[in-house]
Every structure is written in C-alpha cells, then in structure tokens.
C-alpha cells in the first residue's frame, strides 16, 4: 500500500520512459519529410554499429572516461587517506563538509568557471606566462576537457575512497608493520586490495557522468563526444537515430555496473 505511490511513479515515469526511448530506436525517419515512420527496422542499430564516425566518437569518449577516472583516483587517494587516517575527528568532519559542498555547487557554473580559467586572457595563461608556457586553451584539444571533467567529478571519487579507508581496522596496518612491512609494502599488499571496491564505486560515478555529459564538452572544446553527438541528432534532426545512439552509453554503463557489482563496489557505495 505504502509502495503503490512511489513504485508506480518510478515504474511509469522512468522505466516506461526508457522503454519508449528504446522503442523509438526501431523507428526510422523519412529522408525527405523528416517525419518519423513507425515501421520496425534495425537500420539505426546497423548505422550506429558500422558508421566509423560513431565508433571513433565512442572510443574517444570511453578513452576520456578512463583518463578522467584514473586521474581522479590519483588525486583523491592522498586527501582521502589524510581524512581517514591522519586528521583529528574535528578536522575530519570539517573536511567531509568541505568535499561535499563543491559537489553540490551548481554544476553548470563550475563547468563555466573553466571557460574563464582556460580562455586566452584567462587565469591559467596569466600564471603560466612568466614561465613561458601556455595553457591548453578552448580550441580543438581535449586536455582542457580532461581537466574540467577531473575537477567536476573529483568529489565523487574522494568520498567512497575515504569511506573505504576509514573502514580498514588499524590493527591490520599494525600487523603489517610488525611483520616488517614498510610503508610502501603495507600500501601495496594491505591497503590497496582493501580499497579496490571503493575505487570501483567511485569510478561508477566518474564513468557514468563522463559518458552522459554534453555540456562540459560543448563549453571547452570543439571536438565531439557521445553526449554532444546524441544531442545533435536529437529532436527534429533524427530522434530514432539519437535513441539508438543513446543505447551506447546505456549499454556501456550496464556492463560496467555488472562488473562493478562482481568486484563488490555496491557495498562500498
């Protein structure tokens, strides 16, 4: 009884919508009138699977997601370790708030701030100029976008790693030290294996968010990614094709979630 409301809502509004989107991928579009023809066909799937443009963009986006995920892990680990193992309880509490707040600050404004940073006469070039260097700028390059994504998703990686590290009993680290394990050995053989589920949990966010984003790429680079490509096909241009294309990030995420579940990431969320 209690459930009828929320479940009905979710099933109808959400799962139903996904089904309708999926259904649309089987329709096609009249090349002359641009109207959607409701006759089941798998042309769109063939197009998505065989057109080299879509393959290139998919590989580029997945490559970006991997790069962003790895960078976030490297940046997140030290601060998460400091919070979980070094900081006093008071500092720890303050730092959790300090990590959570930027996570919630307007996504769009955060992405936009990087336009200010990366622009020709912006902050980054102002800092780099005395060194004779130049920032990646806002042109075709992907380094700028890599920085933006890393910035945007970093808190999503810090929080699960912090939670994972905090759960490791101190006795394990002491035992490792007693057995002669030095700092690095303890890290490699005790800490790292225990935080793998947390790393995977964080990577679910960094991966999914990178795959689904169409705004940040549009703001800082002219190169196409899955999100910008789907958007350019959505609506009048070709809804059925956009629907078929959107199954690419969806399929990648479903496979990713299944692997993540095997690795125990869901307990670390």
């Amino acid at each position, binding site marked *: 009884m*209690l459930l009828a409301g*929320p*479940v009905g*809502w*979710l*099933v109808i509004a*959400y*799962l*139903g*919508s*996904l089904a*309708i*989107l999926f259904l649309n991928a089987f329709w096609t579009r009249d090349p002359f009138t641009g109207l959607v023809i409701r006759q089941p066909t798998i042309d769109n799937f063939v197009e998505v699977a065989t057109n080299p443009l879509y393959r290139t963009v998919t590989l580029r986006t997945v490559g970006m997601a991997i790069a962003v995920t790895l960078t976030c892990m490297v940046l997140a680990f*030290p*601060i998460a*370790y400091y*919070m979980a*193992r*070094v900081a006093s309880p008071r500092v720890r*509490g303050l730092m959790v708030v300090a*990590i*959570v*707040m*930027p*996570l*919630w*600050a*307007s*996504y*769009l*404004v*955060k992405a*936009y*701030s*990087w*336009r*200010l*940073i990366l*622009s020709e006469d912006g*902050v980054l070039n*102002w800092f780099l100029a005395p060194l004779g260097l130049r920032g990646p700028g806002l042109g075709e390059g992907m380094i700028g976008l890599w920085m933006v994504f890393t910035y945007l998703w*970093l808190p*999503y990686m810090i*929080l699960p790693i912090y939670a994972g590290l905090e759960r490791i009993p101190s006795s394990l680290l002491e035992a490792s030290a007693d057995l002669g394990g030095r*700092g690095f050995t303890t*890290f490699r053989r005790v800490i790292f294996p225990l935080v793998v589920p947390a790393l995977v949990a964080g990577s679910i966010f960094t991966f*999914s*968010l990178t795959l*689904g*984003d*169409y*705004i940040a790429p549009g703001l800082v680079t002219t190169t196409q990614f899955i*999100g910008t490509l*789907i958007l350019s096909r*959505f609506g009048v241009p070709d809804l059925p094709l956009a*629907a078929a294309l*959107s199954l690419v*990030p*969806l399929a990648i*995420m479903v496979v990713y979630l299944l692997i993540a579940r095997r690795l125990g990431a869901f307990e670390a969320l």
Partner: protein
Amino acid sequence: MGGRPGRVALRVATAAVLLFMYFPLALIVAYAFNESGTSAWPPSGLSLRWVDAALANSGLRQAFITSLAAAIGATVIALILGTLAAMAVARHRFFGREIISFVVIFPIALPGIVTGMALSTTFATTGVPLGLFAIIVGHATFCIVLVYNNAIARLRRTAASLEEASADLGADTWQTFRHITLPGIRSAMLAGALLAFALSFDEVIVTIFLAGGVQTLPIWIFQSFRLANQVALVNVAGLVAILLSVVPVYVASRLTRDTGPTGRT
C-alpha cells in the same frame, strides 16, 4: 604511511587538492564583482555594476522564480514518495523489496542525457506539454532517491518496537506515524528535502530536454553563454546558483551529522 617526510607530502597533497576544488568557485565570486565584463585576468577593479545589472534583468528574475517553483514542486513530491518508499522498505517485508532499493537509484545512476531523452520522448508521445510541469515531474523522479536514502538510514537505526507499542495501545496508522515515526525521522526527511531542493535548483542536463520554452536559472545561464551582452551577468547568476545549492547542503549536513548526506550523481 612513510615517516615524517611522508606525512608532510600527504599534507601538501591534501592542501593542493582542496585548493584545486575551491579555486574555480572563488573565481566566480571574484568575477561577479569585477569592474570589467570580460574574462581577462586579473580583474580590473571591484564593482557592483553587474550585480545591479543582474537585479534589473527581468529575464533573469523570471528564471530565478521558475527555478524556485520547480525545486519546491519537485521537493514536495520527492519528500512524500521518498518517505513512503523508505518506510515500506524499512518496516515491511514483501515481494520485490530488494528491487525497490535498486530501482530508486536508477534515475540518478544512468547518464543524464539518457534520462532526459527518455522523459522528453515520453512526454511527447503521451501529449504532456513540456514546461514547468514536465520539469517538476522529471526532477521528482531523480530527487526521490535523496529523501529515500536519508529516511531509510534513519529508520534502520530506530527500532520498530516503538511503532508496534503504539499500535498495541490502540493508535491507528496515521496517529502512529504522526506521533511516533515522524518525530524520529523528521530531521532526516528535512535533510533529504534540502538535498533534493539543491539538486533540482541547479539541474540542467535533464532539464534542457523538458523545458520547452521555459527558462530555469541554469538554462538562463546556459543560454547566456552565447549572448555577448549577458555573459557578464552569468557570474552574478552563477554566484546565486552556488549559494542556493551550497547553503541547503550545509544545513543538511549539520542535520545528519552522524550519517552524512549521500552523494548525488
């Protein structure tokens, strides 16, 4: 990890990451009060020029009001449905209980562009006009999980025996909820609602697909990127957007200090 040098390196790395996280936000504040309207660094001087211009801009004011309405509407729906689902999952055993906890995270775990396109296509198919109503419905679907997560975390830590005692003493379902359950989970519900408000207020990826011609504050900001005469106002609007999401989240984190607010996707 490591001896003293290790500790020092760890502190430096921590400070550097915090700086990296806050620098872009500080930059928006600096530009909001910048004399010049360009992105040139350093700022040319302190001025309230763009704040005045933003206050005088009727499109911006309207967008702000629309965002408030959308966020309040979505929060109310999410609050009711999220609490009901949490109570059902925490207090009752039934078929498909495990699936519920999985389904509620769906709208937030899948890429936003997929959610946006799916909802937009469905509204078009069923004849629901795009606009404020569509935005509220869309936002509510992914805000439910925020209330749900907070409420269920609290319910799991409070014993069901109090509610059973209340029922034994002859209270009906509503009386038990009002006098026993609600006081226990009120602050968790409020925290969830604040998070839902913050998320709805600055959501843009899904909103663009649902808005039709309606402008929320983020959509106004997004469209202003391309309008040369409005781009200087973006920093002021951005500052408002940051404050209206960060302040509720700060309050929420004080309310649930023992559990901490759940991350959003």
